[in-house]
């Protein structure tokens, strides 16, 4: 009950936030929700099924590029391009997963495989002139005032509520999944693959399902990115930096928890803004100092809260993990 109330309070805070927040805070909130959403998607693969993907930008980038290319070249509205983008990303996820799991590429090796695919695709897209290559794919910006959800053109507020809805949707989906058969299978695979196999779980299928689902969700996030910024560059879309951004929030927040990705995003993005503000207020203007402090903060978080902030916070505020359905363990 307490949990419900807390959740509802948090949700209403986010829904009402634009009333209080100016355009600047709104743009920060968009990034927060975007990171929370992507973190949730990545968490399915790593947090639930225990498969470390360090090249998740691959799926976001594919979704973004496919949908954007359809829109730019043939005027296909985003709502129709989205399924195509998701399909391509899911297929890519299936290829990476099938190759990795079938040939027993495990742990660090699997992580490196995901990096290799993402980097390969990055360089590949740098050599597709019809998609702009390194010159970038530019989406016609059009009106920024109306609300056109079909074509994803409109006011920043529309984008905020869209990404908020996506983040909430991903949260509810993950919650539902963990209560399902497949959710229990994932956790079993994560904890002990051989034992899971012995119990009759089709490990290969469970893991593949996690990758494909995670890829599809990430692709939808990529589509949001493309239509929000209206530019796509292979380095921005597929680069290692993007992949690292995706995984930071769930790890900092708490791997495998439902709240972790949201909390992580709520901590990290504002942390960056705060450091910028702080260093400027103290009169330091040296470029790079902000990222240096950000790196140090990250280091401190992993060193002192290795399980993530949420599990620690949960204990502090007295949520009993025992009746916390999200953990599933």
């Amino acid at each position, binding site marked *: 009950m307490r949990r419900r109330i807390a959740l509802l309070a948090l949700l209403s805070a986010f829904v009402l936030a634009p009333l209080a927040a100016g*355009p600047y805070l709104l*743009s920060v909130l968009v*990034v927060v929700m975007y990171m929370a959403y992507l973190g949730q998607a990545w968490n399915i693969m790593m947090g639930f099924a225990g498969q470390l993907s360090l090249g998740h930008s691959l799926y976001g980038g594919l979704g973004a590029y496919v949908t954007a290319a359809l829109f730019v070249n043939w005027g296909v509205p985003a709502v129709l391009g989205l399924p195509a983008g998701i399909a391509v990303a899911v297929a890519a996820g299936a290829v990476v997963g099938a190759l990795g799991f079938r040939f027993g590429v495990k742990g660090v090796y699997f992580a490196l495989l995901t990096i290799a695919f993402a980097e390969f695709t990055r360089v590949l897209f740098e050599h597709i*002139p019809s998609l702009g290559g390194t*010159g970038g794919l530019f989406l016609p*910006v059009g009106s920024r005032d109306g609300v056109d959800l079909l074509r994803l053109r409109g*006011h920043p507020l529309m984008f905020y509520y869209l990404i908020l809805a996506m983040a909430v949707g991903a949260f509810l989906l993950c919650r539902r999944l963990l209560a399902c058969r497949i959710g229990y299978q994932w956790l079993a695979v994560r904890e002990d693959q051989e034992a899971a196999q012995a119990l009759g779980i089709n490990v290969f299928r469970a893991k593949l399902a996690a990758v494909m689902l995670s890829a599809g969700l990430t692709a939808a996030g990529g589509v949001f990115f493309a239509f929000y910024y209206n*530019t796509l560059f292979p380095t*921005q879309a597929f680069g290692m930096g993007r992949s690292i951004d995706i995984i930071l929030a769930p790890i900092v927040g708490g791997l495998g928890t439902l709240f972790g990705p949201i909390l992580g995003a709520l901590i990290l993005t504002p942390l960056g803004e705060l450091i910028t503000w702080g260093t400027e207020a103290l009169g330091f*203007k040296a470029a790079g100092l902000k990222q240096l402090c950000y790196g140090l903060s990250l280091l401190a978080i992993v060193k002192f809260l290795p399980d993530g902030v949420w599990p620690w916070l949960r204990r502090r505020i007295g949520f009993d993990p025992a009746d916390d359905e999200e953990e599933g363990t």
Partner: protein
Amino acid sequence: MPVSRFPFVSRRDFLAGTAAGAAALGVGGSLRPARAAQPLKVGLLLPLSGSLAREGQSCKRGADVTPALMADLGMPVQLMIADTETNLDTARTRAEKLIADGAEVLIGAFESAQTLAVAQVCEQRGVPLVINIAAAPNITEQGFKTVFRNFPTAPRLVTEGLALMKEMFKTSGTTPSKAVFMHNNDTFGTAMAGAVGKLFPTLEMPFPIVETISYDGAARDLAVEVGKAKATGADLLILVAHGEDSIKVIREMVKQRFEPKAVVSPGSPGMYEVQFYKTLGKYADYSLTNLPWINPHTKMSQALLTAFGKAYPDALFEMNVGFTFEAILIAADAARRAGSTNPKALLDVLPTTNIADHVMIGGPIVFDAKGQNTNTRSATIQNFGGRPKVVFPAEAAEARVVFPAPGWQQRG
């Protein structure tokens, strides 16, 4: 350059100084500076860290010396500098933050993707954006009403760059027989390569391009790339670099003894930068770059060069500095003409900008209906003794062109 040549009167005598400065620069002449009570708040967005830190910081050096010069012109500006970290998310939030903090005009953002992200914020908020540098043609094709670009698009850079090459062949009486085209496969390089591919056949160039080699700027070294270029037997290397990759190219050319008649860039950074001279020494000489450059003979550029040399004795003046200065000049000029620093008022007068006296070579700064300055013009600069000197156009020339360049082994 001695400081005493600084043409401005000291700021102690403010009014007189303003008038003298304005007259010296030929800006204020008939137009009485409508001095706003408070300075114009200019938000400057640059990639000061991340992969474009080098370029961003070079722009920032130009910005740092500008407020004092603007104050002397009676157009006070207050700079608010923000770091985009070469990252789209950050560029956008920083733009919103600057506007929230009271910036009345934004300037930036060096690179096309980030510039477009910032442009969307400006369009939304009704705040003008003056682009200092960003060459992708798409930016001014979006129908934005708040975006003004004082930088040539890639096709324009290439057209002028190639025309200047023809002029050089005519003057020197030597024409190469075939060229090889190497370009960095980054955003700018691709845009330039696209323009070369499209425009080269239409410009009746006296030589063919026998091969186009695109390379990865982050590639650890460029031995294969240069080897490939050498194998074509071309006697002209057309190079579109990004920065330090031009050093790698020349270094490999020396080692592999690839000696074309010249290395010439149709408008890219690299071969006029401090690092290029420092690293390559005598091998840096005679390289040619065709790009917008400062006109060394105007009073305003003398003032800028002096101020720049004083603030950064170790840095060389480059294009980034000039265009960042001009972007601020455009904003300040608009505020003066509008008699207000209100963004709406600035937007009303920016389309009628007409600045005859500025620092870069080219006609008056004016904007077409799309917000593009069509009067930018390229010059040819050639390296002599570790410094870039203008060789074309004639009215701005500081030295005579040397073409073909002496071979690597013949340099003392």
